């Protein structure tokens, strides 16, 4: 799981308004701008809130309209949260806090980079539906799934490498 502390640390060090201009070429009119994630007629659907350094888009779907620096970078580049955090820490020279979860080490394994979280997530859900889990286990795995937070290795470890690769092949993905 991604450390909330690392994410907050990034938010504390980066001015999101400047970041949005730098990576998405956003032109501000005061504290409002054209949202880069949807076509807006008004061109002023996104607003910057200085007090807690976040952006809010009034035109994007409700689950995806509240941006901190990490979520903005992840969505703009179509990256997972983990990759966005690493990129921001390196690019803006933000000292990484020591509180790092165990999975971050696993996360560095580049061999799995070619698999996207979306693919593994779909396989995980399919796998869950094929299993005859009792209610308790199903609810526990559901929590793990949402906690995985775009970290596909968490899900991959639960399914197991052999089963995962077998299911990927069955779904038409090429395994190198």
């Amino acid at each position, binding site marked *: *799981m*991604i*450390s*909330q502390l690392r*994410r907050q640390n990034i938010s504390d060090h980066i001015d999101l308004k400047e970041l949005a201009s730098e990576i998405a070429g956003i032109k501000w009119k005061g504290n409002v701008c054209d949202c880069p994630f949807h076509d807006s007629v008004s061109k002023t659907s996104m607003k910057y809130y200085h*007090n*807690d350094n*976040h952006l*809010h888009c009034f035109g994007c*779907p*409700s*689950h995806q*309209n*509240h941006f*901190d620096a990490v979520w903005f970078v992840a969505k703009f580049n179509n990256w997972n*949260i983990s990759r966005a955090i690493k990129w921001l820490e390196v690019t803006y020279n933000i000292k990484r806090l020591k509180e790092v979860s165990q999975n971050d080490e696993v996360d560095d394994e580049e061999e799995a980079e070619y698999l996207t979280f979306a693919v593994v*997530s779909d396989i995980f*859900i399919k796998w*869950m*539906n094929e299993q005859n*889990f009792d*209610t308790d286990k*199903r*609810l526990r*795995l*559901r*929590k793990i*799934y*949402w*906690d*995985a*937070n775009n970290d596909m290795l968490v899900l991959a470890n639960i399914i197991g490498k052999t089963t995962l690769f077998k299911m990927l092949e069955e779904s038409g993905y090429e395994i190198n």
Partner: protein
Amino acid sequence: MKSINPFNLFERTKALYEAECIDWLDSSTKRFIEFRNWIVEPDRVKPALEKAMVRWIPKQIVPGGAFFFPIYDHHNFLSLAQLRYLDPDPHKCLVHGSLPDHLSPWWFGNDQETLIRIAELRKVLIVEGPSDVLACRIALGNSYPVLSPLGKELKEIHQKDLLLLGVKKVQLLLDFDKAGQTSANIQKESLPFRVQRMICPSHDPSDCLIVESAMKKLSKLLSVL
């Protein structure tokens, strides 16, 4: 969306009720029945409000003068809430605390008991809003799992959550208006579940509890579940 910690708001409301020796459930039930113009006995409404932890936030609390509909995340943590303000300016708004480091779907009515029932029955009744959840629970006697995605549509994130819970069948009881019925038609074809579309006897399930005849029709409609 306002940045107000819903848990603190909940606790402050609880403290106020306790300080003034007022039973929050009695008081909230009375107000809710008045607000929705329901003809239902308070004793039937109370269990639904209690289960969903819906309460009235008195005006002494800021922000107050609103009904509080808690929205729990997948850890049963109160990270969001919908506030429904009444007069003088009736409107709804979402409040949130600190930003979560994960994305999980927003549901109203996803208490642990309901999730367990969904996983056991492998089916769920979907309605549009919090008041509709309460109305259906009243009509169904609180036992059948009812959820609201806070809108007309089960988005991809909601669908994934239901799949994770093992859901095979979804019963859609959306508002009986053009938007609701169009959405139901589209979802009947597109959702990855068996979909049973139900036609609401009134404009929405909550409105069914305003008139005796509509209430009976709703109970009859839901009795087949």
